[in-house]
């Protein structure tokens, strides 16, 4: 079984524009439609089987927003299965985790077992529900889920791969699971997850005498005497270091020919840090 192909969802945070096509396509597929034996109809309102979270980083005017689509992670060690009656939640050979709407009926505790909050309660049907990975469509020969089909930026991709192939893809594309510390071994992977989990440090360098943008100024970031990164300020004098650990401290050094070099101790905030403009003094 280890070499059999399994379904994975790969989500690129840097390509997600929060268009919500995935969220809405999920509703189109499941609201009012029974897809037995995998799911009974989702209620008209309230469920977010593809739940898109938003996070802003930085401060005006150096800001970005990341969107994290959170479906069921189709974990290899699904806590929902562990907390459910025998056979009520099961994992298929193709990797999909499914809640049997008949066997799981009345078992509200399944809801609370998901550390990702990806399971919803259907009051009318008295059953816990979540993303099925469009199992009924894949059974029919579909090679996409409804959400990946409508994604205009290919931020969402459905990947059928063996564990070995997936491991290669994880390495080559820099994929990572969200919150691996939960230990559930998700089959949903993220690219550019730093936009969600890490912080940036940004600012602008200005030539103090002329008031012009310090294009070409060298900006170096060090931590405990170790050089972390170095960038060149762009035509607006702007620089940005990303992928930094929130809460960490650095030393920032700015150098430009003809100007005194400048050093600042900076702290990277949870929501990222935008420094006040840095004015260089003529040497």
């Amino acid at each position, binding site marked *: 079984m280890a070499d059999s192909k399994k379904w994975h969802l790969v989500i690129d945070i840097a*390509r997600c*524009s*929060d*268009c*919500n*096509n995935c*969220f*809405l*396509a999920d*509703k*189109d*597929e499941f*609201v*009012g*439609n029974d897809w037995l034996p995998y799911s009974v109809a989702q209620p*008209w*309102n*309230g469920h*977010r089987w593809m739940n*898109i979270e*938003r996070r*802003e980083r*930085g*401060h*005006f*005017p150096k*800001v*970005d*927003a990341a969107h994290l689509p959170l479906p069921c992670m189709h974990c290899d060690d699904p806590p929902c299965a562990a907390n459910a009656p025998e056979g009520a939640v099961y994992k298929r050979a193709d990797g999909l985790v499914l809640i049997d709407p008949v066997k799981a009926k009345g078992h509200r505790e399944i809801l609370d077992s998901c550390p990702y909050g990806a399971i919803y309660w259907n009051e009318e049907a008295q059953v816990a529900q979540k993303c099925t990975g469009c199992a009924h469509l894949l059974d029919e020969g579909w090679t996409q889920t*409804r959400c990946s*089909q*409508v994604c*205009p*930026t290919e931020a969402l991709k459905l990947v059928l791969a063996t564990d070995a192939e997936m491991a290669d893809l994880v390495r080559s594309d820099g994929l990572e699971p969200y919150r691996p510390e939960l230990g559930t071994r998700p089959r949903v992977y993220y690219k550019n997850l730093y936009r969600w989990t890490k912080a940036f440090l940004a600012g602008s360098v*200005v030539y103090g005498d002329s*008031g*012009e*943008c310090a*294009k070409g100024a060298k900006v170096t970031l060090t931590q405990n005497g170790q050089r972390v990164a170095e960038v060149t300020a*762009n*035509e*607006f*004098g*702007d620089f940005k270091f990303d992928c930094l650990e929130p809460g960490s401290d650095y030393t920032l050094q700015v150098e430009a020919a003809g100007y005194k070099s400048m050093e600042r101790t900076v702290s990277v905030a949870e929501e990222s840090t935008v420094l006040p403009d840095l004015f260089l003094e003529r040497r």
Partner: protein
Amino acid sequence: MGEVQRLTNCTTGGPVFVDVRDDRIIRITPIEFDESDGPTWTIEARGRKFSPPRKALISPWTVAHRSTIYSPKRILTPLKRVDFDPQGEPGSTGKGGRNTQNRGISGYEPISWDEALDLVAEEIIRVRREYGPGALMAEPSSHHTWGNIGYRFSAFQRFFNLVGITYAEHNPDSWEGWLWGGAHMWGNTHRLGLAEGYDLLEDALRHTEMIVFWSSDPDTTQGGVYAAYESTPRRFWLKELGVKMVFIDPFFNHTANLVGDKWLAPRPGTDVAVALAIAFTWLTEGTYDKEYVATKTVGFDQWKDYVLGVSYGRPKTPEWAEAESGVLAREIRALAREWASKKTMLAPGGLAGLGGASRCATGNEWPRAMIALITMQGMGKPGINMWSTTYGTPLDTEFFFPGYTEGGISGDLANSAAGKDFVYRMFPQGGAFSNPHRSAEGTLAYRLLIPEAMQHHPHSWRGRGFCGSHIEAQFVKYEYPAPGYPMVQMYYRYGGSFIGTMTETNRYIRAYRHGKVPFVVNQSIWFEGEAKFADIILPACTNFERWDIGEWALANGYVTHSSLQCNHRVIVLQKPCIKPLGQSKSDYQIFAELADRLGVGPMFTMGRSEYDWVKQHFQATDLAKVMTWEEFEKKGYYVVPPKPADAKRTYGLRWFAEDRERDTPDWGPNPWEHVRGKGLQTQSGKIEFVSNSLKRLEATGVVDPERPVMGPQYIPSWEGTKTTDLLAKYPLQLIMPHPRYSFHTHGDAKDSWTNEVKDHRVLHPDGRYYWIIRINPKDAAPRGIKTGDLVRVFNDRGSVVLSAQVTERMLPGVVHSYESCAEYDPVGEPGESPDRGGCVNLLSPSRFITPTSSGMANNSCLVQIEKWAGALTQGASATQGASSEQGVA
């Protein structure tokens, strides 16, 4: 259970497959092309090959369409307002009265179709007999449900041309200043003042190094219009090629967040100051295309003196612009230098043209400024143009299929683009007609002044609707009522809701309740917005419940070849996927049954069903050359092959830059619109910094200080940062761009799933989904406002209750809430109390962008915000009617 059938349809947000079982739609998916469909183009550029996905990249409200088709807000029977008695005299109240004062308050009762249609027909006959032609005013929304047969230019227009109406002409609502201002600089009225744009995707991929998006958010506004996410992959390609993208917008918009490299945030209404400072930098540093300017423009030297401060006021330095706009002088200079050193596309608005900065006070000057800047860099040369990434794919423009704007079954030569080709193919044996009453010699109303017409206040304005025929069309002065015509006695409203989309819209509500129109009918799919102010409501069905035919995103005559926004030309047979819900009927059917009662049934239908019309339409196009009707009916759509890879490219305005005759497939300018068949539509054939057409207007004694002959000029907003008294009272500038998850009123509210999109509406404990307002923490904190708080946003014109989203993406001092919500939900008396539906246009000014430019200035709107206590407090006192600038008598 029956078999699943896969049918086809098309929407304002793309073509779709519709899976149906047992007369129930079970899913709606984008059309994905198969091997038998037309091929996809490839563009080779900088050593790479670019090809779009072989499927339609559809919009969110299209994905969610099933929820609006089966919406609990669908109207399923004809309705009559309970206290409306058609036997009552106009103005009568109480039992047996018309009780028009209760519109928007009293409920409705179902009536039969026969009752409803008899009543409407009798009223039409009554007002025509008693008052003469034009006493009936009929008005559609801008965007009907998709399809060339059912669209407003088609069935609606055919019916009302037979009946005779006063039509309320539409203003160019999404691009005002481009037509009222831009056209006087570069012509292009045949494109409604917008850019040409052919083949510029290939040009950009090969040559462009930087794109400046100015008041432009194509990922929010469906490219330009209707094209959903078709252009999104192109911006990623450009990014991969290292093309730098700068965004200028008071809001850090969604396209900027996805692909932007730099964000500059001018205060609303000050964009022109920033543009002038860029020009100042180029002029003083000598970094502009002097030869181009010398040979292809007129009046440049005079304008140059204005910018440099030689003869008109102070120099327009970056420091001056910083004081006006808040954009740092050093960043303006840096942008100007970078721009001059790189082949740069200027992307103003979603379609090169459009953009909120053209929908504001003195909004003519920003489009003129955009034209001025790209002119200075050699517009039309390789990689340098006016192009927003959303148009100019290498598709075939020869294959004939008409847009919805080409008249459909109306064949109306006077009020659609039917006369270009289509009417002769569609009606070879006759049967097409226009109505002389709907003409300059007849009677016209103006959409932005409908309330004044309903109040029977005589008024005047300049310019007829979209004024696309010629530049001078926008100078003509119209009066309401036209000489010899009556005031409106009956109002037939069709689709949409102006409360969310027009200006100072409490006017519209008061006009229903306290105006002088004794009978109002609304033909509507959903019970929402404006429908709730009618006396009789006729339930129409959606385009998923009737026959139709249409090409995705095509609106020839407005924006010619607008399907070049898409990656494929997709022509769709729009099949009735299900039977009309409840007792609802197609618009065509409703009009046909009314036409019967009015004695013009045979002329309306020509004995044809909708299916027959669709078939006739098919035969009138090039589709009939490539397939049989039976093949089309079976397949349901056709993908037009792109033009061959070796076909000649005709890059937009390259002919102008190279001093050749125009070689693009554009429809204009018409021969009589340019001298000796060469050059632009302007009188000189060149780009006019001193506008000959505005000079001619001035020569007739019409002096408009907000529409100067020489320009672009910076004219501070009459409701903005310089109106200090008003600013003291209402210190926040509200901008209201086109919405992201809905399209005008399509897709919003109606209990649709779109309501649950977190950035669209927010569910509050009272069970309502509130519209969102975005506010910077610096403005939110002193008001004690947190994300998720309900706030009251208000000014002298009204108040709206919205859900606050505190965000660093806003320029401090500016708040953002999309226009065009579908719902109107007043706390108390309609028109006089806060709205919980989210109609921020209750707050926008009704004053026109300039005294002679009859456009709307939604983005010049000062407001105050406070936490909403939820009490039934009255909104601030509102000003009645339109201001004197519009010539209201």
